[in-house]
């Protein structure tokens, strides 16, 4: 980013370090900080994450703190308590119209609306126009949509949706990508050797885990609470694999198996990546989203995560291809460390930096995908606050420019900062 001024030109490691600054061992963080655009993007990202975490305290129809008839309440905290089952909601709590109470003292959130609430007299009011609100405190700062929902409140909760989807789906993608990419890069086609019983046991456990975890439980998954049931199913799968490997370890020790089969890890992973590359992501994502019966943000996160790991896998594979022939890996091998230990304790941590670039760009992409899907109204529940969802309503009433402007701006800024961070990390890795 040549247009953004930099404090100083990049210098060689160790040169011109202002005294009193802590120097990171690799110098990457220092180089990153010199890129002011990237640093500011990181700060904006922290701000967005803050909004996402505290969305309920920033935009809510309930006050944060209030006093009615001599009693003190913390209604938003109480809502959390009721949701988690720690507190009981009494009738007065549910009956209360929080915005029309006679308070002795009250602190409302900065935006005194929640994203679902429709303020019917104020349909399509402009941020600068006349609004039928009791005081400036209840003004719709970014206007409202057709049924009087506050755009600012939807923006705040849309931030939460966008951050949640991008963080969790990229988390899934990172896990899959790191695992498969490092297997492919570190072991190649002939170094992942597994004894016959271990291979057979793992394959059996995998098949059984899918059958018992997902096949048999498909009814439970469909009927019960989705998140818990999915976690249970995944735990069954993982437990099966763990047990299989424990048994395999015991068999190997007991019967002293020496013959082993080489698994062409690199070939398998590369072929999978090639296939995922060949299918246009958007088409696959749309067709996969069409399968969703009960729209839920969880499915969207899972689908994006499962489809978007290839970039990360390629980065880590390329890194480990270099690292695996470095001297310190040889030294570790000579010391008799196991291959897995070398991979996870020594090789992988040193190859992680480039992955950050892939993650940052992946985040930008995920934010875009989530907005795109909710813009088309596919996959996400219609009542959930999402930037794409708000933007979708803009066309039905062209006079309301604010309905189109703000959510788009949200998407644009988020994508831009992720791209800038990605570039910044990329530049700081290569000195």
């Amino acid at each position, binding site marked *: *980013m*040549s*247009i953004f001024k930099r404090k100083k030109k990049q210098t060689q490691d160790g040169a011109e370090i202002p005294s009193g600054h802590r120097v990171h061992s690799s110098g990457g963080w220092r180089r990153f900080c010199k890129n002011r655009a990237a640093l500011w993007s990181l700060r904006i990202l922290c701000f967005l994450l803050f909004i996402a975490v505290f969305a309920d305290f920033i935009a809510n129809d309930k006050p944060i703190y209030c006093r009615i008839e001599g009693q003190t309440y913390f209604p938003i905290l109480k809502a959390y308590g009721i949701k988690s089952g720690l507190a009981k909601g009494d009738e007065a709590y549910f009956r209360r119209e929080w915005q029309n109470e006679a308070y002795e003292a009250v602190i409302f959130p900065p935006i005194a609306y929640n994203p679902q609430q429709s303020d019917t007299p104020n349909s399509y009011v402009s941020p600068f126009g006349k609004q039928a609100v009791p005081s400036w405190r209840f003004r719709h700062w970014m206007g409202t949509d057709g049924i009087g929902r506050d755009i600012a409140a939807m923006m705040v909760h849309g931030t939460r949706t966008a951050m949640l989807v991008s963080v969790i789906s990229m988390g899934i993608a990172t896990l899959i990508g790191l695992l498969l990419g490092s297997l492919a890069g570190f072991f190649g086609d002939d170094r992942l050797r597994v004894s016959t019983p271990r291979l057979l046991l793992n394959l059996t456990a995998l098949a059984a885990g899918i*059958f*018992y975890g997902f*096949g*048999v439980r*498909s*009814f439970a998954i469909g009927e019960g609470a989705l998140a818990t049931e999915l976690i249970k199913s995944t735990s069954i799968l993982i437990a099966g694999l763990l047990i299989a490997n424990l048994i395999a370890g015991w068999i190997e020790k007991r019967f002293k198996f020496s013959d082993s089969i080489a698994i062409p890890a690199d070939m398998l992973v590369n072929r999978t990546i*090639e*296939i995922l*590359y*060949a*299918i*246009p*992501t*958007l*088409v*696959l994502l*749309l*067709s*996969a*989203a*069409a*399968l969703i*019966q009960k729209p839920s943000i969880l499915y969207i996160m899972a689908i994006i995560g499962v489809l978007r790991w290839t970039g990360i896998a390629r980065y880590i594979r*390329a890194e480990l291809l270099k690292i695996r022939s470095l001297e310190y890996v040889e030294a570790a091998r000579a010391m008799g460390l196991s291959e897995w230990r070398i991979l996870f304790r020594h090789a992988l941590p040193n190859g992680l930096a480039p992955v950050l670039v892939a993650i940052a760009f992946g985040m*930008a992409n995920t934010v*875009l995908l989530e*907005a*795109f899907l909710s*813009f*088309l109204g*596919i996959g996400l529940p219609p009542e959930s606050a999402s930037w*794409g969802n708000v*933007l979708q309503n*803009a*066309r039905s009433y*062209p*006079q309301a*420019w604010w309905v*189109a*402007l703000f*959510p*788009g701006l949200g*998407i*644009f800024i988020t*994508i*831009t900062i992720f*791209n800038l961070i990605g570039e910044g990390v990329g530049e700081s890795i290569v000195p």
Partner: protein
Amino acid sequence: MLRHLLSRLLLFVPMLLVISFIAFGLNQCSPGDPVEAALESSGVMPAAYLREYRQKAAALELDKPPFYFAVTSAAYPDTLYKIIPQRNRETAAALIAQFGNWPEISRYLKQQDIFKAKLESIRKDFGSKDQFNTAFYAIERLPQAYQTVSIQAGLDSIGFALAQQNPALQQVVSPEFEALKQAYQQIFLKQSRWKLYLPAIHWHGSNNRYHRWLASILKGDFGKSLKDGRLVSTKIREAVSWTLTLNITAILLAYLLSVPIGVYSAVHQGSKADRIISTILFGLDSMPNFWMASLLIIFFTTPDYGMDFFRVLGPLSLPSDAGFWERFLSALAEIILPVFCLTYGALAYISRQVRASTITALQQDYIRTARAKGLSSRQVVWKHAFRNALFPLITMFASVFPAALAGSVVIEHIFNIPGMGQLLIKSIQGDDWPVIYTILMLASLLTMVGILIADLLYAVADPRVDLNNKNRN
């Protein structure tokens, strides 16, 4: 070269096979009922509807097993796919998942039909029409009820309606009703949930839906759309001309504009002009095209802001009998905005790449040599630097093209252009799977061909590239 081409083309076969598995698997998992998507009438005359449903299901080959084999619990019968309509099959599967005893469940489901027939035969003798309707409504809904509560509620409401009839009528109908209740009780009493945990493999042979679908695709027959019964190939041919014209125009524009922009800002690297260009390009690169499209539509096609220079393509402006080019030319004024939306993203991306690669090329030694021997800066830039900066342009063509196609999904949706993107979204919203998986396979094939062409062009442009070297990546 030829050997490489052949081996790459051979690799297409297994990859397309895997993609066909994915497409077909997605179709199998889709919640919608294909027969209901295809049938226009929805349950006005129950008996006639069911007959029509059966015919349609047979025409769509839904009476055949889906795949060569199936791995299920031992509790499920291997002929579960034969139960139609689909909703009844889902109920049966849900009941099996709860109780695991298919013989009893099957008896209970059969008893429902028997009781329903009996109930219809005594329609006239019923005390009042309302009472009959209550009972009949309940028995009609029973094949879709799988939760204990809803089944019990259905049985109760039938029992209540029957109890209000005269004793003679009750006498006539009670054996069947008792049998139905008995059959339901049996499901509870003879549960065999252990069967659910036994895996079973059913072999179906080659007379299955996947096999026949793949065979017909190899013959070039992509089937018929469920929605309007038209050939998928016809629908796609109509749509693809719009998409291709728009995208080729957009990509050509993007390439034509981005090369001078990229080279200019690379040559003037660090200048004010370069900074401004880079900022704008970076911004455009991050700008979601559906936001841009929404803004353009709002500000430039509606009279509210006094800037309605353009129109949005409406179905009215398309004379359906006219040829494609005639329609296209008549729609030219409406097409400027979508082409712009398709162009700017590619433009920004390509310009940034051209700038980066030209900068790299300008730092090479041979550029210094060229300058030293007194060539004009124009000759240095265009003859020496640009030629070597061409590489990314070539590879990008392979990635820009599929990306542009994907990007036009939402642009076509927003601007109401009857292209592939709109076809895809409409098919997905309408569960029109024959169209969806044809598009999925075609788009994948296009992408693979694009990647292959990029590799070949790479080798043609640079003799140093060795295609047979396996360790490139």
